[in-house]
């Protein structure tokens, strides 16, 4: 009995300490400066933070690739969530309680508060008040995809659109868009020269 109590209190204590230390790290990342660790290693974390919110995955990911919130600034997500009744020509309205949870998640994890590499680069490519509705409209995205031909994407029946990230970026769902993971259907791996 006594031993059990000891184990439980140790567990509670260690969880609390873990919480405090991660809070200390996050305080910095929230300001977009990058935490102590990422600064130490000379940059930010690779890719973009993976999606962790189940409502977002269910409600948004059931129709299209669940774009990580770190791919657009908060001001873009605010616009997206305010216009769900005309979501790129579709009606994607949600009950208020779900919409609020998702909006909250998007705003808290948007590119402007992230120290992941792709988020930082997307933010750097935007002007102060730019609020693009599509990731594929950001200058960073356009630059990274400017060598692709219509045959590879738009007229490729297995891709069809630049909005279809995971058609070629095999690890996109994990927030990883590295070049060596690219596999364009009917074309194969991407070789940059």
């Amino acid at each position, binding site marked *: 009995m006594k031993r059990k109590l000891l184990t439980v209190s140790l567990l509670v204590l260690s969880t609390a300490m873990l919480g405090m230390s991660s809070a200390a790290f996050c305080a910095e990342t929230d300001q977009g400066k990058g935490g102590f660790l990422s600064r130490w290693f000379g940059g930010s974390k690779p890719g973009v933070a993976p999606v962790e919110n189940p409502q977002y995955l269910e409600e948004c990911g059931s*129709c*299209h690739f669940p774009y990580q919130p770190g791919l657009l600034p908060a001001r873009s997500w605010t616009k997206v969530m305010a216009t769900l009744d005309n979501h790129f020509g*579709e*009606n994607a*309205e949600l*009950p208020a309680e779900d919409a609020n949870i998702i909006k909250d998640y998007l705003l808290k994890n948007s590119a402007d508060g992230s120290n992941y590499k792709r988020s930082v680069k997307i933010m750097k490519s935007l002007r102060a008040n730019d609020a693009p509705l599509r990731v594929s409209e950001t200058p960073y995205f356009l630059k990274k995809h400017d060598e692709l031909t219509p045959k590879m994407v738009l007229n490729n029946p297995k891709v069809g659109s630049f909005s279809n990230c995971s058609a070629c970026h095999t690890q996109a769902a994990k927030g990883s868009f590295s070049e060596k993971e690219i596999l364009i259907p009917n074309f194969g791996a991407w070789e940059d020269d």
Partner: protein
Amino acid sequence: MNIRLIGVTALLFAVPFFAQASAVSELEAKYQSQGAGSFSAAAGEALWTKEFVDAKSGNKRSCPTCHTADLTKEGKHARTGKVIKPMAPSINPQRLTEVKKIKKWFVRNCKWTLGRECTAQEKGDLLAFLKAL
């Protein structure tokens, strides 16, 4: 022992059907409380296949535009190409089991297809048509 096992297994298999019945009957009661009369599968089918002209694009739209004509088969979203699982509950037992999902898709798809929300009567008719598939 064996009989009990069979009973439990049969019950487990029946769960989706109970869920469908309860979600649909809950909504039917709600629609009737909103003024709808009795529901007709034939009226539901007629609405399902009716074509509406989109005011903005001038394109014709109907439910089969995305769900295709055969509801026991997969559909395909007209714009995104997303695969839509079969609507027929006999093929896809998950269909019509969640009130929240039914409500959500009635809002979205009535507005997209008809250009307005469906009435309580229309929604009940559509459910009557779909639940029997």
